[in-house]
């Protein structure tokens, strides 16, 4: 089977083209650096099937970043039959820099001019024939997003792959032309593949080439001694200059620009506001809050708080009342996310009642009924009921990502947090952490600085992922239900921000202690804003849904059965009361550890409940919720239902009431879960991305940070006025000491 490689600059549309060619649903993001590894698929759009390899986005074939290494090694070692070089037609000159390097390889190249639809919209024109004549390889105009020109491209690639092609260089006019020719001849004589490419890289002083061809390097050194140039021997810069010179001279004529494109684009105008030096971050916070408000608010736009419009509808029919309460209650009009959550809770309650009566009617033993109702179904439905709400949050986040705004977030945060030791590049995997820590940790491969990579991997779990979101939703919803004046949406928003603030704070501390070093410069091409594509959004949501469903029916269901068993059986394998159960004994044994955080011994006989929930969360964070839902009936908590005005968070409210846990301790519990060791999958991925021997420090970092922070949060929230007075006294004392020292050091003696 013919093998085609897709190579191009970051965010030029390679993965979109890959999806169009292969029918795959690989993750596409409107920011550079989404793909960090190569992936393979089969294209059946041509006359014969062809294997297509999507390479990470690269600006050059120099081995500076892991992506460049992956792409270069693949092209040199795996010898594809043809390379499709995707060039963003809206930024042609910069994209052609990579093209000039690909042309130096002995491989057929086809240039795909992508985003020509955007170009036309601007009133500009790309002349594929003119460019093809200048480059000496076929050029095809396409729009990967709209799947236009794909068949022509496949045909061109198939045709090109049938014939061999020798590398060509655009450096014939450069001062190094003779040197490159000499080395090319020498390498060809030795039978080295891609001699021209290696010769140019050798002249650039490329590290792997210098090691591989020491004899030819002597020729370069001798040439350097003989010839003086304006680049002080920096041939890499000289060659780059020669490439850009050639591109400007020969290729820029292929694109004719209209007067319209010289003006500021809509993206540029939007960026003047959204990435404003002062307003950028406040606007980001407002957008983020709007997301949480639409997802978690029980009182949409605070209409009830302002106009007092909420009331409980009572028709006399409990099912109808419950259904109306899905949309409207005494709290006001529910936000779309809450409506989805309520609907799912309503369905889960009906399904649960059906299962319970079915198992009972079948005459199953009491323990079997308990296992099904309070074990398997309680655990699974606990997680399932949050899925629509969390999916809604992800839909909103995906819209931000696909529109191109998330790339701006990295840019505006870079400006603010650089002084704390964090670069905007590191924020890209962190923002990905809102979805799942696993791909976020993989994305850290794009960070060149090892220290920055280690720090980023450590703080990625602080960005609340989709699995932790149900914990926040449940806990904040329960607190809001129990305490008047607290809004669930504000609380969730505050906790998300707290996670981000902790990431910045801990990085700042690491930068001052164990990870001292310079912050890497951040250069990122800001993609143009565009309307999110429905297909792309659906792929994001399908991923999340698949993730939850798979987890719910594998890890969660298995854990629920185990938790139910351990909470209903004693050490001598007899069914027993919860106080004599295995789970109680295990939890009680370690509950003292959680006392400083507010959810240990102070809860008396229920001190072990939240300890067990936190421990099960180490397997998968959704387990915290399923544990709540299994343990609530097990400890005899009276679960409020729809009739009591509680939706799917009933078991959490019941646990609060039964155990007597305070809201401060619940917040500390949530903070502990947000910051502690992530799930096994994420921890394993971080381990894989961390240099050998360093992962144990990362584990210690997670445990210490979560424990100390949760303790501090509990203490501050519980005795905030005491802490405030102590802090005030400490500040006064520090000021006094500082003034005294200053007075002592004053040369005048006053």
């Amino acid at each position: 089977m013919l093998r085609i490689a897709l190579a191009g600059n970051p965010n030029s549309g390679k993965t979109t083209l890959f999806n169009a060619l292969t029918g795959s649903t690989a993750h596409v993001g409107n920011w550079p650096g989404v793909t960090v590894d190569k992936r393979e698929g089969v294209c059946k759009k041509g006359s014969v099937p062809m294997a297509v390899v999507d390479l990470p986005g690269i600006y050059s074939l120099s081995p500076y970043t892991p992506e460049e290494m992956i792409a270069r090694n693949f092209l040199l070692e795996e010898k594809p039959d043809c390379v499709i070089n995707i060039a963003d037609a809206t930024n042609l000159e910069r994209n052609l820099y990579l093209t000039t390097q690909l042309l130096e390889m002995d491989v057929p190249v086809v240039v795909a001019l992508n985003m020509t639809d955007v170009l036309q919209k601007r009133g500009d024109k790309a002349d594929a024939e003119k460019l093809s004549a200048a480059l000496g390889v076929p050029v095809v105009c396409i729009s990967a997003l709209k799947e236009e020109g794909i068949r022509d491209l496949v045909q061109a690639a198939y045709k090109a792959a049938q014939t061999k092609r020798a590398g060509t260089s655009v450096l014939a006019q450069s001062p190094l032309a003779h040197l490159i020719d000499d080395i090319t001849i020498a390498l060809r004589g030795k039978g080295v593949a891609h001699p021209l490419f290696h010769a140019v890289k050798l002249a650039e002083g490329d590290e792997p080439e210098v090691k591989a061809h020491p004899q030819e390097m002597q020729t370069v050194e001798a040439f350097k001694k003989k010839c003086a140039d304006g680049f002080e021997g920096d041939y890499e810069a000289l060659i780059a200059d020669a490439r850009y010179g050639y591109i400007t001279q020969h290729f820029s004529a292929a694109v004719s620009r209209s007067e319209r494109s010289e003006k500021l684009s809509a993206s540029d105008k939007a960026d003047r506001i959204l990435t404003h030096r002062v307003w950028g971050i406040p606007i980001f916070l407002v957008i983020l809050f709007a997301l949480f408000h639409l997802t978690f608010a029980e009182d949409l736009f605070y209409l009830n708080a302002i106009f007092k419009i909420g009331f409980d509808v009572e028709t006399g029919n409990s099912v109808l009342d419950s259904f109306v309460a899905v949309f409207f209650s005494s709290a006001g009009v529910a936000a779309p996310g809450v409506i989805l959550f309520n609907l799912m809770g309503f369905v889960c309650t009906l399904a649960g009642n059906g299962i319970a009566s079915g198992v009972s009617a079948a005459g199953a033993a009491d323990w079997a009924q308990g296992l099904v109702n309070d074990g398997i179904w309680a655990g699974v439905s606990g997680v399932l009921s949050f899925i629509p709400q969390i999916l809604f949050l992800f839909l909103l986040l995906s819209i931000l990502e696909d529109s191109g705004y998330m790339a701006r977030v990295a840019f505006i945060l870079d400006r603010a947090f650089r002084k704390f030791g964090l670069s905007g590049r590191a924020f890209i995997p962190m923002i990905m952490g809102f979805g799942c820590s696993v791909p976020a940790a993989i994305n850290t491969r794009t960070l060149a600085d090892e220290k920055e990579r280690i720090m980023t991997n450590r703080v990625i779990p602080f960005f609340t992922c989709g699995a932790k979101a149900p914990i926040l939703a449940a806990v904040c919803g329960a607190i809001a239900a129990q305490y008047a004046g607290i809004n669930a949406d504000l609380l969730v928003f505050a906790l998300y921000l707290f996670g981000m603030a902790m990431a910045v704070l801990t990085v700042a501390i690491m930068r001052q202690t164990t990870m001292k070093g310079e912050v890497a410069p951040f250069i990122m091409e800001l993609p143009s804003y565009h309307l999110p594509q429905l297909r792309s959004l659906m792929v994001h949501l399908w991923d999340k849904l698949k993730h939850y469903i798979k987890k719910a029916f594998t890890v969660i269901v298995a854990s629920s059965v185990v938790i139910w068993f351990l909470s209903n059986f004693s050490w001598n394998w007899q069914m027993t009361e919860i106080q004599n159960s295995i789970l109680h004994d295990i939890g009680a044994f370690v509950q003292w550890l959680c006392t400083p955080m507010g959810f240990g011994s102070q809860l008396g006989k229920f001190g072990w409940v939240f300890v067990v929930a936190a421990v099960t969360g180490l397997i998968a964070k959704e387990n915290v919720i399923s544990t709540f839902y299994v343990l609530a009936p097990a400890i005899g908590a009276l679960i409020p239902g729809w009739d009591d005005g509680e939706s799917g968070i009933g078991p959490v409210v019941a646990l609060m009431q039964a155990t007597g846990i305070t809201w401060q301790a619940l917040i500390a519990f949530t903070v502990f879960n947000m910051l502690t060791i992530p799930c096994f999958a994420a921890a394993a991925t971080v381990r894989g991305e961390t240099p050998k021997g360093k992962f144990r420090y990362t584990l210690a970092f997670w445990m210490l940070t979560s424990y100390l922070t949760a303790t501090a949060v509990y203490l501050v929230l519980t005795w905030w006025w005491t802490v405030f007075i102590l802090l005030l006294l400490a500040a006064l004392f520090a000021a006094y000491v500082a003034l005294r020292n200053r007075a002592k050091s004053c040369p005048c003696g006053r």
Partner: protein
Amino acid sequence: MQFLLLSATGTIVTVVIAVLAVGLVAFGIGYQIWCKKKGKSSCGCDCSSCGGCCHSHKKEKK
């Protein structure tokens, strides 16, 4: 007779539930091990965002 039939049904349902519970736990654990061995994606979900890559894959070295 009806009582005996109901009792037998109850016993069968109970046994089925017990077997199902054990099966679910075995499947849950087995699935995780299978995913780990397969190495397609570290959490077993093989989401598109993982890009088909996994922590178990060898990283490219400079």
